[in-house]
């Protein structure tokens, strides 16, 4: 079978870039759930000791020789997952914004889908964005919802789970462009036949370290996300995709 539910082995993939302040605590929180999840921290050319802290906390660590961005880090993580026989993977931010207690809820979404998104604006929590960034997110959500034939409110969320089928598709196409790890990968996955669903989650505040966004970038974000969406909509579909139920 291409996609079993529940997945027998789950890998928690944490992209981390200069997150030594928070990665240790986040890894420990996940391991303390005692649900048998393995944690893989993808240290993306950090200049601090993210890798050592993560390893000390009990995570497996992939150290990329230089910064590839979240897209490249995640693709490395998915390759690792496939190589080591995981049939479920979930991306969790290293900065502690994703509540480890929600991991099982997001994974539960895989029962009826190949990709399950932990969504921030779906009723729970009080995470808010404003201005151009908000418009961009609303526009992206509307377009991708139509494409996926289901209501999605937060398509740029990094909190998302994949089953074996989606992992294979991601490895074929997980672009390195700006927003490639969220918009582009999702659009191509949907167009290649993956089923997407969302699960409401709460966002916590950053537990430390530096956010990668600032308000000045918000307007640019709108333009670039529309461009990313346009590119994704016109890309070729994954050809190595395995149809549902077959292998």
């Amino acid at each position, binding site marked *: 079978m291409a996609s079993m539910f529940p997945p027998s082995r789950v890998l928690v993939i944490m992209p981390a870039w200069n997150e030594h302040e928070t990665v240790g605590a986040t890894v420990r929180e996940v391991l303390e759930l005692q649900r048998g999840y393995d944690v893989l921290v*993808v240290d993306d*050319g*950090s*200049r601090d*000791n993210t*890798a*050592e802290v993560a*390893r000390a906390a009990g995570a*497996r*660590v*992939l*150290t*990329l*020789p*230089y*910064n*590839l961005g979240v897209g*490249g880090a995640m*693709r*490395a993580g998915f*390759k*690792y997952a496939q*190589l080591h026989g995981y049939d479920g993977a979930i991306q969790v931010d290293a900065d502690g914004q994703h509540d480890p207690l929600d991991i099982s809820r997001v994974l539960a979404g895989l029962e009826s889908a190949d990709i399950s998104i932990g969504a921030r604006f779906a009723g729970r929590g009080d995470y808010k964005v404003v201005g151009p960034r908000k418009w961009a997110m609303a526009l992206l959500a509307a377009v991708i919802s139509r494409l996926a034939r289901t209501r999605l409110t937060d398509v740029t969320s990094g909190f998302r789970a994949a089953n074996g089928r989606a992992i294979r598709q991601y490895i074929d196409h997980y672009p*390195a462009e700006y927003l490639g790890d969220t918009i582009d990968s999702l659009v191509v996955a949907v167009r290649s036949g993956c089923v997407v669903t969302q699960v409401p989650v709460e966002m916590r505040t950053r537990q430390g370290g530096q956010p990668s966004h600032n308000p000045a970038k918000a307007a640019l974000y709108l333009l670039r996300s529309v461009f990313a969406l346009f590119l994704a909509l016109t890309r070729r579909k994954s050809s190595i995709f395995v149809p549902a139920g077959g292998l």
Partner: protein
Amino acid sequence: MAVLAAFVFAFLMVVLVIDLVRRKKLREKYAVLWLVVGTGALILAGFPQLLAIVAGVLGVQVPANLLFAMSIVLLIGVCLHLSWELSLVEDETRVLAEETAILRSSLEDLQERMDRLDGAPPRRRVRVPPVPSVLPGSAHPSALHNDR
């Protein structure tokens, strides 16, 4: 005099490109474009009337403008080609980076297991400084060597 200078210049350029390919300093696929440009310049330098004739046929009033227009088109073509090749190379290096990271983690696994088998004390891991992304990533200290 000017015609002679143009001819010599074009000739030297063609010779230089061929020599670079011969010494494997330039890949043939990039050389082709430059050879086309060089040969074109050579022909025009040899027969300057040719430019005026072609300009007349195409209805270009000032022959020099035809030359400029052609140069611009060619240069844009070369630039686009280079960006395209660069993107390809970047994609390839990304894949290599991912693969090395995965290989390194397997190697560390293996070493740990071997050490446990040998009953040796665990090795100290060496911190590998990341390659600064702004500088051309030249020789990178090998990531694979653990000291004892």
